[in-house]
């Protein structure tokens, strides 16, 4: 009988220690939370160089000498915001590109209002994206630009390249769903049942809060409980708190998605899987992936629960290009851009891949020039 008594005493002692530690943590937490916190996101300076309706084109000038002649246009999804690529100094995809000497343009889709509910994929791809591409081509006096798409923005970029192959030099897709016929991700299972038309009739645009609730429900144990337990355990750590708040700011900054675009994306992509079968119609034209003949780099996350590898990896086999590469990173949907490990891998890989193709293009141009001179 004596042993359990000793154990209880030890446990009581531990509880007392724990209680003291908790008090100390709360004391420090008070200082942290009431003190000055640096939680600003998207602080890298940029210029808005073009705007159509609510859609803006951001321009980031590299700090060092440009290593690529062709600028890179980054197209983010309509869900959440492009600020994720510039969360904080030292953890910024945008800054990493600039450090690599790449000139970056990025589309900011803005905050759709009720007026935008009729805008479909055609408007986003053939109007907004096309105007931005044309602006960059004209400004740099180039025929083609490099295009990088993220998630739904990647799907738009694939559609754009298939419809405007003459305007794109290299295509990079990251965590981009193109094959929707999989039951690996919960989104793919749930969206099969959704009556998107009725949702749009009820809401006009898809509310960002609605979509966020859906994302939280993908893993409530981690996203609604464990995450905040972790926060409480580190509430006295200023750097942790700052990073945590930055991420919270980004996650819950969710613009509504234009109703017609949402309906089309759910019905044509998630429910009918038309894109990968070359059957999708955008702006009255069939999207034929075989028309994508430019180099394609397709990057996705092995543990991505929103866009699983099965939704991404078919693309390289379906396009007409012979220069394709798949890269599967050991990370998830967001980790690919924000984890320290991927920060070290993602941008250098893309930069290297682009430089190889920029050199090839330069050499080909030189060869062509030589050939035309010898002819004359």
């Amino acid at each position, binding site marked *: 009988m004596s042993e359990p008594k000793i154990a209880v005493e030890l446990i009581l002692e531990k509880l007392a220690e724990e209680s003291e530690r908790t008090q100390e943590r709360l004391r420090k937490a008070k200082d942290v939370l009431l003190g000055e916190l640096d939680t600003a996101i998207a602080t890298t300076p940029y210029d808005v160089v073009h705007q159509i309706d609510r859609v803006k084109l951001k321009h980031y000038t590299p700090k060092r000498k440009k290593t690529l002649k062709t600028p890179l246009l980054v197209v983010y999804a309509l869900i959440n915001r492009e600020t994720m690529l510039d969360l904080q100094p030292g953890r910024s995809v945008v800054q990493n590109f600039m450090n690599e000497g790449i000139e970056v343009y990025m589309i900011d889709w803005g905050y759709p209002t009720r007026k935008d509910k009729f805008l479909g994929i055609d408007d986003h791809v053939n109007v907004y994206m096309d105007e931005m591409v044309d602006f960059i081509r004209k400004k740099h006096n180039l025929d083609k630009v490099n295009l990088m798409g993220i998630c739904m923005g990647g799907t738009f970029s694939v559609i754009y390249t298939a419809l405007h192959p003459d305007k794109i030099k290299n295509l990079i897709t990251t965590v981009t769903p193109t094959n929707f016929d999989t039951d690996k991700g919960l989104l793919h299972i749930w969206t099969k*049942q959704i*009556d998107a038309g009725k949702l749009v009739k*009820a809401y006009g645009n898809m509310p960002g*809060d609605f979509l966020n609730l859906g994302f939280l429900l993908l893993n409530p144990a981690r996203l609604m409980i464990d995450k*905040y337990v972790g926060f409480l355990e580190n509430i006295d750590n200023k750097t942790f708190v700052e990073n945590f708040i930055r991420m919270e700011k980004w996650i819950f900054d969710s613009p509504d998605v234009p109703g017609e675009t949402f309906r089309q994306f759910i019905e044509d992509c998630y429910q009918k899987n038309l894109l990968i079968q070359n059957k999708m119609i955008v702006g009255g034209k069939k999207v034929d992936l075989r028309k994508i003949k430019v180099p394609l780099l397709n990057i996705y996350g092995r543990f991505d629960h929103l866009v699983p590898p099965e939704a991404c990896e078919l693309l390289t086999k379906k396009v007409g290009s012979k220069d394709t590469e798949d890269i599967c990173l050991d990370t998830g949907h967001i980790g690919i851009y924000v984890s320290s490990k991927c920060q070290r891998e993602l941008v250098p890989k893309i930069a290297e891949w682009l430089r190889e193709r920029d050199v090839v293009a330069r050499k080909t141009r030189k060869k062509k020039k030589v050939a035309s001179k010898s002819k004359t």
Partner: protein
Amino acid sequence: MNGEEQKGKESEVFTSWLKSSFDFWKSLGDTWPDVMKVSGSTGTGDQFMDYLKSWQSMMEMSEGLMSAFYSSGTVEPVLSGLGGFPDIAMRITKAGWDGYFYLYRQWVEKTLGAAEHAQSYVFEKLDKNSFKTWTEIYEKEFKQILKIPKIGLAREYQERMAELADRFNVFQTTLAEFLYTLYLPIEKSVQIVQQAMVETAKRGDLGDDFKKYYKMWIKTLEGHYMTLFKSPEYTDILKKLLDAVEDYKIAREEVLMDVFRNLPMPTNRDIDEVYRELYDLKKKVRELSKKIEEM
């Protein structure tokens, strides 16, 4: 006028409108016998009186239901209704945290030797059948009242009002069922970890680190959720909830448009028509500009 005042005004307008449209039916039932007397008609005698009685008792039942519906404090949630996806998220999160604190308390109590008094964790004394029973009662009893044919000048308004009452009730029941489905894994996983704690406590090595049990719980909970979310039952209830939300929202806007039509402000339908025209015009202008550039 600030947002709260505006909300108050809206629900005031809505309440009085709702009440007046109901009163029309009530007064019709009450005055019917007098009208019959004056006109010298007895209807079809006893049969008519039976019908009238059942009409009046139905209206009394309906009045009970409706008065609850249009009483102050009820109308506002109906109107604001689904301001609320963050509210739903908060309710689920709260349930999770309740489970966390409950486990922590159990762990502390057990380490202090109170294991034999440990209670089994029951989140809510809810029974899945209660949703089914309520739905059946609602469909058989109350919904029938809402389905009474509407007549007269205000019939369309009343029809939309009845539709809203119906959709609101269906939405509330479906939401409760959905939340209950999400609570179940919390309840089950807490029970599993609680059982593990009881068994370890009996062996005398419960340990001094709650984190170990927390990790066990969160992993079990995650597993239960994954199993639930992949099940066809969950997909069905999710679809049911979405349908109910959409139906309710559409019905709510229809009624609000009736209310706002009497006020000097445009409705969503009016605005949407303008936006559609604007969208088409912009498209045309863009096409024409391109053609001009190419010329």
